[in-house]
């Protein structure tokens, strides 16, 4: 690997101040620091030793945590396809078909986003932030597999530009970048991201009587007097017990978010490594469950009567809580704030789902809304700290 280092050292002067490629210093730095941990040393006064962690390591951990969702999502895309068309297929064929359709979305999201990052680093002269490594993986996982690739690119560019870079880059943004991309598509191209878009048919025609409706849509359209659970149980994609299938994720939906189990595996990794806040994850699930129970008690319509545990396994709730609510930049920063922030996300998600007929998926709006309110929550927690100090002084 010495030749690699020597090669970098040889071209480095061109990128440094005064070199002819000075403009491209930060893209060069990004590549260099990706390959080699830099040789910077600590200042002459202060902490002479440092923790081995850095942002790259932290972000990579999140990506690793998403891999179960990604792999399962690829398989599920193929599985849903063959289920809808009635063709028989082996596990390998299912996975392959999914991979062929999912990987281009991943590649496009990364290419579009990193493109913006590189341009911005040159124009704004700031280092390329590692934050996009996570965003680039999140965006494909919350898209339907049938999404046109140009829309993926457009949404990613919009999100990185408007959602992040105009605020100053990673660490400064207010809204979760991946959700901004999804919200953009939701409002700009609603027909491509809602309705019957969740299953890939290709050239084949679906079986007679097949509907690609997600459990969320089924729950919302269940007529009065009937049970939501029965309606989901009768859906064409349910093979065994409804709850187990929903938990496992054998259902149509966005690529990575159908399986609660895979999300929980990711959550376990995030919590064990301390990268994701367990407080947010726990309180958000608890909030959703509690709100579900409250609606059960009211039971004004079939959706409200749906058992509260179903709220946790349908839609993208688990995925949103585990991977997007825990985004450290846009979540509440104080420890008490995290409890409040998480709980409100869970509660709001269920309210939006059940009460607002326009948005079948509540988690996206709930997180975006709470992103906006997180600084307010923090403000009050910090204010409490200041008040304690003030009280102490005046006693």
């Amino acid at each position, binding site marked *: 690997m010495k030749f690699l280092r020597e090669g970098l050292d040889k071209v480095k002067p061109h990128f440094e101040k005064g070199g002819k490629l000075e403009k491209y210093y930060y893209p060069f730095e990004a590549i260099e620091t990706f390959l080699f941990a830099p040789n910077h040393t600590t200042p002459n006064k202060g*902490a002479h030793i440092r923790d081995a962690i850095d942002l790259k390591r932290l972000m*990579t951990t999140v990506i690793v945590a998403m891999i179960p969702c990604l792999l399962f999502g690829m398989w599920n895309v193929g599985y849903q396809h063959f289920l809808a068309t009635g063709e028989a297929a082996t596990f390998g064929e299912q996975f392959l078909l999914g991979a062929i359709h999912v990987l281009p979305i991943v590649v496009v999201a990364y290419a579009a986003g990193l493109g913006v990052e590189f341009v911005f680093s040159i124009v704004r002269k700031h280092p390329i932030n590692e934050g996009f490594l996570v965003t680039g993986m999140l965006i494909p996982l919350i898209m339907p597999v049938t999404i046109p690739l140009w829309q993926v690119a457009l949404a990613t560019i919009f999100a990185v530009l408007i959602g992040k870079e105009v605020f100053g880059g990673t660490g400064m943004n207010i809204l979760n970048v991946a959700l901004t991309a999804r919200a953009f598509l939701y409002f700009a191209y609603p027909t491509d991201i809602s309705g019957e878009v969740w299953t890939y048919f290709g050239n084949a025609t679906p079986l007679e009587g097949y509907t690609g409706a997600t459990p969320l849509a089924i729950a919302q359209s269940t007529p009065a007097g009937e049970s939501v659970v029965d309606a989901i149980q009768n859906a064409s994609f349910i093979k065994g017990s409804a709850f187990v299938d929903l938990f496992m994720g054998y259902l149509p939906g966005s690529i990575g978010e159908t399986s609660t189990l895979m999300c929980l595996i990711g959550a376990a990794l995030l919590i064990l490594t301390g990268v994701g806040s367990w407080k947010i994850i726990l309180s958000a699930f608890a909030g959703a469950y509690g709100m579900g129970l409250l609606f059960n008690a009211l039971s004004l319509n079939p959706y409200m009567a749906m058992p509260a545990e179903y709220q946790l396994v349908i839609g993208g709730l688990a995925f949103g809580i585990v991977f997007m609510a825990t985004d450290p930049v846009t979540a509440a920063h*104080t420890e008490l704030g995290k409890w409040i922030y998480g709980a409100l996300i869970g509660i709001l998600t269920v309210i939006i789902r059940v009460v607002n007929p326009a948005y079948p998926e509540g988690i996206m709006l709930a997180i975006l809304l709470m992103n906006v309110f997180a600084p307010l929550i923090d403000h009050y927690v910090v204010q409490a*700290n200041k008040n304690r100090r003030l009280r102490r002084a005046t006693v």
Partner: protein
Amino acid sequence: MSKTIKLKRGFDIRLKGVAEQKVASVAQPEVFALKPLDFVGIQRPKVTVKEGETVKAGTPILFDKKNEQVLYTAPVSGEVVEIKRGLKRRVEEIKILADKEIQYETFNAYSSSELGKASREQLQEQLLKSGAWPHIIQRPYGVVAKPSDTARDIFISGFDSNPLAADIDFILKDDKKYLQAGIDVISKFTSGKVYLGLNGKKASQLFSDVSGVEKYSFQGPHPAGNVGVQIHNVKPVNKDEVVWTISPYGLVQIGKVFLEGKYDASKVVAVAGSEVKTAQYYKTYSGACIKNFLKDNLLEEHVRCVSGSPLTGSRIEKDGFIGFYDNSVAVIPEGDEYELFGWALPTTNKLSFHKALGLLSFVNPHKEFRLNTNIRGEERAFVQSGVLERVVPMDVLPTYLLKAVMAQDFENMEALGIYEVIEEDLALCEFVDVSKHKVQAILREGLDLLQYS
């Protein structure tokens, strides 16, 4: 019986090369230096001696034009051989070539009973003149105390929880009587109490029968030994209040000034760290050159020597001088090297507070690490939240405080408790920070803003 305070937050950094409890015999260093930069808050240092002059131990050689009463004196007798200046002619070192036999300036010697009767004015005059006064540090700001102030309370930390720290019990084991005299003197300067923080994990021989203090013992990881943390958990500093702190070594110095009538700057220092062959203690004087201690004692040539703790100290050269307040020198590997995929590869040789790297650290919790000076990453905006708070056992929100300093927001700096902390209290934040901020430098910037603008 002392009250016990349990602190949960913090982090013990275990480094290789803790000093063995023995005092080595090597040739006494020839040159000693007083470094004005050791004294935080000296604004206009003025040197009162010229190169070639001879001084005794206790002869004033420096003062601050903004605080003229406090004199800084020579640690040893001998000839002033060099006054080293740096950028903008800033005085960096006043070097003294030591006599074989140290000559002392004479001050009034008191017996223990006379000390009890002496007035504050008498004591203060001798403290200022002898050069022992700068051991008294004031909070807020962590600067040398002002003689015109009366402290609300005085705090002493009886142990040092920093990595590679010298064992205070060991280095002062023969100085019990001076320690008590120091406490007797210092207690005249407060209208409140003198508090002593003890190590809750290990009983102290040194402080067992010290009187005139209120004792608290502290349990928990570093920074439990930091006096700032102890103040916060006993009786925090509020706006417009002044408390003083002093190290046990400082007390011993003060005790010697009064009992012996001379400024005896002898001290025992630990020379520790993964890069020395034998980590042990040396008996020398304040401001000693470390050259003799490192001679034939280094495992590696490419090292960094740090006067003080590796978490808070100052870099010195291999023939540099130990700082005024420091009892230890740490010698650690210099880390100016590239590492292929250094951020990605799994490893057991790096230490991390974060589980993302140290997921399996519980397997071997007592492992000692050989850490170098590499920053291990690049500086970024704050991303991860809640981590800095986990290493500060105080009701202070370090991230918000640092942001207030960066924004030069005076009101919020005050409201968020900047008066309660100095660099050492947030040193662990600098260590654990994922975004690699220079936390201590930022904090000092804030403290300077509040003091001088």
